[in-house]
C-alpha cells in the first residue's frame, strides 16, 4: 500500500492500464497527473500549448490505436470543448479518457463550473472517484468502458479528490497491444454525411450506456437504516459516511448516464431520499424529472464545497436523522482577537513586481490574464482591471479601445504571461494587428509556467521529459504577426521599463513589450544577497511598502527587511528615495 494523492493514483492507474500517451496543459488541481505520468518511461507525455491541442493529440493517439489520457482543469475543458463534442461522435480506437479536475470552492480558479454538464451535453459517460484507490481503479475501468462502448470518457475529479492522499494498492502494468489502425473515413472524417450517421450511433450508444449504468460495479448501494437514503458522488461519499453513519447510501461512481431502475428501487425502499452533491443539482434534476420525491438543493448550498460540517449542520436541523456527534458549527468566539486575512502574494524577488510597480505609478488601465501575475491586482499594487480567462487580456484590451477610442488606448495595456500567451494570447495579438488596434501588449516572460508549479512550455526550451528543444522566440513571433514595435526589457530595470512603457503607449500602433527575467524560484544564477535597511538613513516614508514585498515589514516608524526571505532583487533599494536600502556586505552599516 502506498499513500498517493488522487492525481498520483490516476497517473499510476493510467500506467497500469497500458496507457501510451498522456497530454495536458497544466492547471490546478490537475497538474500532477501529467507530471507523474511523465515519470513512466512507457508513457509518452507532453505539455501541450493548450487544452485543445492536448485533447487533439489524445484523439490522434486513440485513432492510431493507443490508449490515451488527457488531463486539464475544469476551465480547460472549455478550451477543449470543440474537439470533445466531435470525438464524442467519432468514438475511439484505443481507449480515450479526459480528466476534468473541477474546483468547488475555487481554491485556485476563476469560476466553479460543474463539468458533469459537459458529459451530458457531449453524450459521453462521466465517472467520479471518491478517493485515491478509486482514482486508480476507476481510471482503469474508464479505459475499458471507452473501448467497450466506443466512446471517450469524462473522468471528473474535484480538488479534494485530486489533492487528498490515501492508501492505494499498486498493481502491475497490463500488457495492452496497440489496436490495429485501419483507415475509416466514415468514422473519423466528420463531414455532414458521415456525422449524420455517427449521431445515430451516439444515441444508440447512450441507450447501451444507460443499461450498463444499472449493473456496473461503479454504482453501489450500502444498506443501513432505511429511514433515510442518500445518493452521493465523489468526495461527498466520504463525508456522508462519516456524518451520517446510520444512513443507507447509493454511491454513484458513474453520474452520467444515471441508472434509472437502481435509483427508483433505492428511492422506494427508503423513507426519505436526499442527493448530496457539490455544485449543481446534476443528479437531483434528473431524479426529480423521474417524479421521485427527493431533497437536495432545497437544503444544501449550490455554492462552494459541501464540507462535513455543512452537511452535519443541515441534518442537525432535521432531528429525525441520526447525525454523528460532530461539534456544532461554531465561529470564533466574540472575545477572540481579530485574525486579518492572509492573501497570497507575489514571492520575494518576483520579477512581476517591478512591472506592476511601474504600471501602478503610471495609472494605466490594465487588462489582465491568468497566472501568478493576477496577484498584481491585490493591494498595495492594485494594478489590474480585468481577469476573465486564459488569453483574454489582449482581446479585452482591443474591445476597450474600440469603445473608448485611441486616446484611451494611450493609457491601456494588456499583460499576459509567456505560457498564457502561447496558450491563447497569440490569436489576440494577431487580432490587434488585423483589426487596427493600437494597444500595448506586455508579455511577462519569466521563463516558466509559474502559478501551477514551474512546468515547461514551448518558450522555455525544455519538454516535460527534460529534453532540450528549440524554444519559441516570442519577439520574433510578435514581429511575424505584424507588430513592428517589439522591445525586450528587464522588469527590475524600472527606470528603463517606465521609459519604454511610456514610449510604446504613446505610439499609435500595436506594440509588444517583453519583460524578461526568470521566476525567482527557479533563478539560481542571480545574486541573492539579501537587502537591509540602514536605520539612520531611513526616513520612514514607506514608499518601499508600495511594492508589496512580503519581506518588508514596518517596525515602529521605520521598516525592516527579513533576511531569511529576501531574494536580493534590489527593487526596494531602487524605489527608496534616500538610498537607505542596500545589499548586505555592499556598504558599511
Amino acid at each position, binding site marked *: *500500500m502506498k*499513500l498517493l494523492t488522487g492525481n498520483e493514483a490516476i497517473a499510476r492507474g493510467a500506467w497500469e492500464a497500458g496507457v501510451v500517451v498522456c497530454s495536458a496543459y497544466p492547471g*490546478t*488541481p490537475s497538474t500532477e497527473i501529467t507530471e507523474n505520468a511523465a515519470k513512466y518511461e512507457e508513457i509518452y507525455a507532453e505539455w501541450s500549448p493548450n487544452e485543445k491541442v492536448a485533447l487533439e493529440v489524445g484523439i490522434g493517439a486513440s485513432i492510431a490505436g493507443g490508449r490515451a489520457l488527457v488531463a486539464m482543469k475544469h476551465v480547460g475543458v472549455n478550451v477543449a470543448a470543440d474537439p470533445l463534442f466531435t470525438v464524442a461522435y467519432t468514438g475511439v480506437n484505443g481507449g480515450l479518457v479526459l480528466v476534468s479536475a473541477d474546483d468547488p470552492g475555487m*481554491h*485556485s480558479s476563476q469560476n466553479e463550473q460543474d463539468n458533469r454538464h459537459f458529459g451530458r451535453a457531449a453524450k459521453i459517460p462521466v465517472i467520479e472517484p471518491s*478517493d485515491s484507490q478509486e482514482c486508480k481503479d476507476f481510471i482503469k475501468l474508464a479505459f475499458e468502458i471507452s473501448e467497450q462502448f466506443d466512446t471517450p470518457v469524462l473522468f471528473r475529479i474535484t480538488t*479534494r479528490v485530486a*489533492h*487528498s*492522499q*490515501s*492508501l492505494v494498492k499498486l498493481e502491475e502494468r497490463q500488457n495492452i497491444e496497440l489496436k490495429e489502425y485501419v483507415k475509416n473515413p466514415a468514422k473519423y472524417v466528420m463531414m455532414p454525411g458521415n456525422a449524420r450517421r455517427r449521431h445515430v450511433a451516439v444515441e444508440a450508444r447512450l441507450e447501451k450506456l444507460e443499461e450498463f449504468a444499472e449493473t456496473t460495479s461503479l454504482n453501489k448501494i450500502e444498506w443501513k437504516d432505511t429511514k433515510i437514503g442518500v445518493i452521493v458522488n465523489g*468526495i461527498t461519499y*466520504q*463525508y456522508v*459516511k*462519516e*456524518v451520517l*453513519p446510520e444512513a443507507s447510501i447509493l454511491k454513484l461512481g458513474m453520474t452520467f448516464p444515471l441508472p434509472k431502475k437502481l435509483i427508483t428501487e433505492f428511492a422506494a425502499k427508503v423513507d426519505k431520499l436526499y442527493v448530496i452533491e457539490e455544485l449543481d443539482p446534476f443528479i437531483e434534476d434528473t431524479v426529480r424529472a423521474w417524479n421521485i420525491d427527493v431533497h437536495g438543493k432545497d437544503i444544501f448550498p449550490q455554492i462552494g464545497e459541501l*464540507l*462535513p*460540517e455543512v452537511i*452535519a449542520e443541515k441534518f442537525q436541523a432535521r432531528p429525525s436523522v441520526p447525525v*454523528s456527534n*460532530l*461539534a*456544532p458549527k*461554531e*465561529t*470564533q*468566539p466574540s*472575545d*477572540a*482577537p*481579530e*485574525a*486579518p*486575512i*492572509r*492573501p*497570497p*502574494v*507575489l*514571492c520575494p524577488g518576483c520579477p512581476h513586481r517591478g512591472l506592476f510597480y511601474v504600471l501602478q505609478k503610471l495609472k494605466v488601465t490594465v487588462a489582465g490574464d491568468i497566472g*501568478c501575475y493576477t*496577484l498584481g491586482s*491585490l*493591494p*498595495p499594487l492594485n494594478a489590474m482591471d480585468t481577469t476573465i480567462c486564459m488569453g483574454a487580456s489582449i482581446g479585452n484590451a482591443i474591445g476597450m479601445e474600440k469603445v473608448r477610442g485611441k486616446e484611451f488606448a494611450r493609457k491601456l495595456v494588456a499583460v499576459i504571461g509567456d505560457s498564457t500567451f502561447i496558450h491563447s494570447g497569440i490569436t489576440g495579438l494577431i487580432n490587434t494587428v488585423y483589426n487596427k488596434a493600437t494597444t500595448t501588449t506586455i508579455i511577462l516572460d519569466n521563463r516558466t509556467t509559474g*502559478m*501551477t*508549479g514551474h512546468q515547461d512550455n514551448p518558450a522555455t526550451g525544455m519538454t516535460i521529459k527534460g529534453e532540450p528543444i528549440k524554444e519559441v522566440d516570442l519577439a520574433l513571433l510578435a514581429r511575424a504577426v505584424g507588430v513592428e514595435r517589439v522591445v525586450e526589457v528587464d522588469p527590475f530595470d524600472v527606470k528603463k521599463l517606465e521609459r519604454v512603457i511610456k514610449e510604446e503607449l504613446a505610439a499609435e500602433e500595436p506594440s509588444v513589450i517583453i519583460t524578461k527575467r526568470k521566476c525567482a524560484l527557479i533563478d539560481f544564477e542571480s545574486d541573492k544577497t539579501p537587502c537591509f535597511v540602514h536605520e539612520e538613513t531611513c526616513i520612514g516614508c514607506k514608499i518601499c*511598502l508600495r511594492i*508589496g514585498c*512580503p519581506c*518588508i*515589514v*514596518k517596525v515602529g516608524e521605520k521598516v525592516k527587511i527579513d533576511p*531569511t526571505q529576501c531574494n536580493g532583487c534590489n527593487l526596494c533599494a531602487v524605489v527608496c528615495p534616500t538610498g537607505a536600502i542596500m545589499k548586505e556586505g555592499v556598504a558599511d552599516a
Partner: protein
Amino acid sequence: MPKVTNILIVGVGGQGTILASRILSGVVQKIGLDVKVSEIHGMAQRGGSVVTQVRYGREVASPIIPLGQADIILAFEKLEALRWLPYLKEDGGIIVNDQRIDPMPVVTGAAAYPEGAISYIQSKFAKAIVIDALDMAIQAGNSKATNVVLLGLLAKHLDIAKEVWLEVLKETVPAKHLETNIKAFEAGYSSIG
C-alpha cells in the same frame, strides 16, 4: 466509526508544513494505520495561509477534519494558530511556534497584527504549548529545520515510538541535511512543552 486522530498543521506558504505532514503520515503508515491527508496547493503556496489535515486510525473515511474536531493543531505561525482555532476540540492540544509573519493587509496598514494571540490561546486552551522553534532550528544549524523542531515536539505528545519517527525522518530527508534535522527533532522532542 472507529476512533480517528485528527491533526491540523497550519502555517504560511513556504514554511515547510507539507514536509511535516509527509513525515507524520509516513510515521502512522509505518505503524499500520489507515491515514488520509488533505492539503490545498495552487494559489495558497504564494505566501498565503496554508493548512494540511492529517487523519489516522483503523479506518478513515473523509480526508477533512470538521470544525471543532482537531485533537491537535500544530501551528507554524501565531496568527495562523489563531485563525484555525475553531477547528480545535474543547480539550484539544495546540503547539504554537512563537513566530510572527505579517500578512499583506498588515504590511499595508489595512489591518493590525493581533498582538494578544498567544495569551488568548493560552487562556482558552489549557494544553497550549508555545515554543520558539525558529530559534531552536537556528541553534540546530538551519532555520529551515523549524518544521522538524515542531514535529519533534508533536512526536512527544503522540503515542508513537520515537524510533519510528527517526526512521521516517531518515527516509524522507536528504542525507546531507539529516544530521541537522535529527538535531532539530531532538531539540523539539526534549523541549519543555
